[in-house]
């Protein structure tokens, strides 16, 4: 056995004759197809035994050229595409594009549209968080919670489908407001849905939050420091779990958030458990906001829900940057227009992209089994990483 390692390539040296008992590093690919990743994120792990020495997230397996496609589609068609990059927060994605174009046009959106958008954005946030609240325990072997999460999601999706016609890709925003007004009695059904989800939230507390096994796997695992959050531009629940008290809905309000008292859920531990808790408490907070919006919609005087625009909408020459607090973090839209019916450039800044970059800092030093817990707690959607 004279096959000693040659060159810089890490090779496994086997045999007694190798002399010193040094172990070689092993490079292990997690993904692009792997049961522990959701979607096609690939992580190249360098392992020293069970311990991760280096982790490099490799992205691009789901690149669909959305930004380039935006340049060849008019603003209404862009909404179709924008709603798809993060398929769990379709409404919030449309919203950002619509708001960017409206700002360029200097368009005043009717009050009913603003409140309805706020309501739908919050319902979308709850839907998104419920997905992760179910899927995260699932990744760690707890199969039951996802069934509970999906029962609640179904209640909300029924309400979303009734107003928009879609269960996932709502396609309900238009430049200048919403596509259609609310169906009669819809607000009551929203209230019922909110009440139903709220009733079931304590179950999540008892099923997952208090579970010793879940705590053992998540407490103190994957601690993300606030400095790292800031350095990498992570945002959303991931950042707030590390004590970064930043939420655009409160700090730079858009839509009707300025008139709402937005509770910002934060934790200081920065571990997987804290990230999960932020998500869980955010659901309760968002349900409260949605309830308030529904009440405000009832009290509003009758009026239009969109602005009548000419058939061809052309954003005037110029540029703007809009950002919104999407369920997974900050989404930014940099829109450059040359006054044509398509944007010259529409750059997306997506939450998942920044959030997973932290993995390179977070994973080294962890054990392989912890990697699954950390990966799941970063709450990302692969489509949102690659666009």
């Amino acid at each position, binding site marked *: 056995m004279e096959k000693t390692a040659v060159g810089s390539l890490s090779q496994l040296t086997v045999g007694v004759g190798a002399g010193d008992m040094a172990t070689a590093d092993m490079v292990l690919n997690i993904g692009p197809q792997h049961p522990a990743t959701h979607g096609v994120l690939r992580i190249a792990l360098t392992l020293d035994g069970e311990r991760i020495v280096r982790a490099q997230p490799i992205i691009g397996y789901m690149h669909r050229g959305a930004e380039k496609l935006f340049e060849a589609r008019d603003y209404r068609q862009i909404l179709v595409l924008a709603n798809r990059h993060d398929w769990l927060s379709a409404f919030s994605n449309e919203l950002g594009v619509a708001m960017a174009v409206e700002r360029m046009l200097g368009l005043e959106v009717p009050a009913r549209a603003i409140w309805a958008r706020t309501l739908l954005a919050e319902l979308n946030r709850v839907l998104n968080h419920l997905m992760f609240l179910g899927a995260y325990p699932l990744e760690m072997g707890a199969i039951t919670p996802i069934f509970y999460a999906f*029962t609640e999601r179904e209640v909300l999706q029924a309400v979303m489908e009734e107003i928009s*016609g879609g269960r996932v890709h709502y396609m309900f925003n238009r430049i200048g407001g919403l596509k259609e007004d609310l169906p009669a009695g819809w607000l009551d059904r929203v209230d019922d849905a909110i009440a139903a989800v709220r009733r079931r939230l304590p179950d999540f507390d008892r099923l997952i939050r208090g579970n010793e096994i879940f705590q053992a796997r998540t407490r103190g695992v994957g601690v993300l420091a606030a400095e790292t959050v800031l350095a990498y531009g992570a945002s959303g629940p991931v950042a707030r779990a590390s004590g970064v008290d930043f939420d655009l809905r409160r700090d730079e309000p858009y839509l009707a958030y300025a008139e709402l008292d937005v509770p910002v859920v934060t934790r200081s531990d920065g571990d997987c458990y804290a990230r999960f808790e932020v998500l869980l408490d955010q659901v309760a907070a968002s349900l409260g906001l949605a309830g308030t919006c529904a009440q405000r919609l009832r009290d509003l005087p009758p009026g239009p829900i969109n602005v009548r625009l000419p058939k061809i909408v052309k954003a005037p020459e110029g540029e703007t940057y809009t950002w919104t607090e999407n369920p997974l973090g900050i989404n930014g839209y940099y829109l450059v227009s040359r006054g044509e019916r398509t944007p010259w450039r529409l750059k997306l800044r997506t939450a998942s992209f920044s959030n997973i970059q932290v993995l390179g800092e977070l994973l080294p030093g962890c054990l392989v089994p912890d990697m699954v817990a950390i990966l799941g707690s970063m709450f990302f959607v692969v489509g949102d990483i690659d666009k």
Partner: protein
Amino acid sequence: MTKVPGKGLVEGLGVTLKALTRRSVTQQYPDVEPELPPRSRGVIALLEENCTVCMLCARECPDWCIYIDSHKETLPAPEGGRARVRNVLDRFAIDFSLCMYCGICIEVCPFDALFWTPEFAYAEGDIGDLTHERDRLREWMWTVPEPPALDPGAEPAKEVTAAQKAQQPPPVQQARQAPARPARPSRSAGVAADRPEVDPPAGDSS
């Protein structure tokens, strides 16, 4: 965190126990049909009697999944007039394997020829069969539901305002409106006489 060990697990089991006593939420789909709201985007229906082959839907479609073929037909000149050219639909097909279900085609249709219907059970073994030709699209028309009533705070639908306006005005306007009304359903007879300027340019630009 000084708790009785295993308390969390027992509480979790309590949730399971509670769920055991609750009615199941599962719908046994093929036996129980889901109740879908009227706005549900299941499949697109075509009312080809209303279609003027203006091609707006095909052009506005973000992924160009609508195929339209047509030819021009010259109508014999009415007495004292000139001959009219109109478009005749030869093929109208939507490829539902490409369709993104955004509804832009329905929104842009100026003559209400396209509608959403909540029907969803049209899965096929062969991807080519997902292209629904005009007769199949026309069949879906029978499943189009009435739109839902709107919230009290909503502006009345523009069709309602138009209808109210049509009912109220003085006899002068009513006389003008009366012949225009029956012209819509029976297109073949009405269009050439009522909208001679609208149709040919729309067809030409396609």
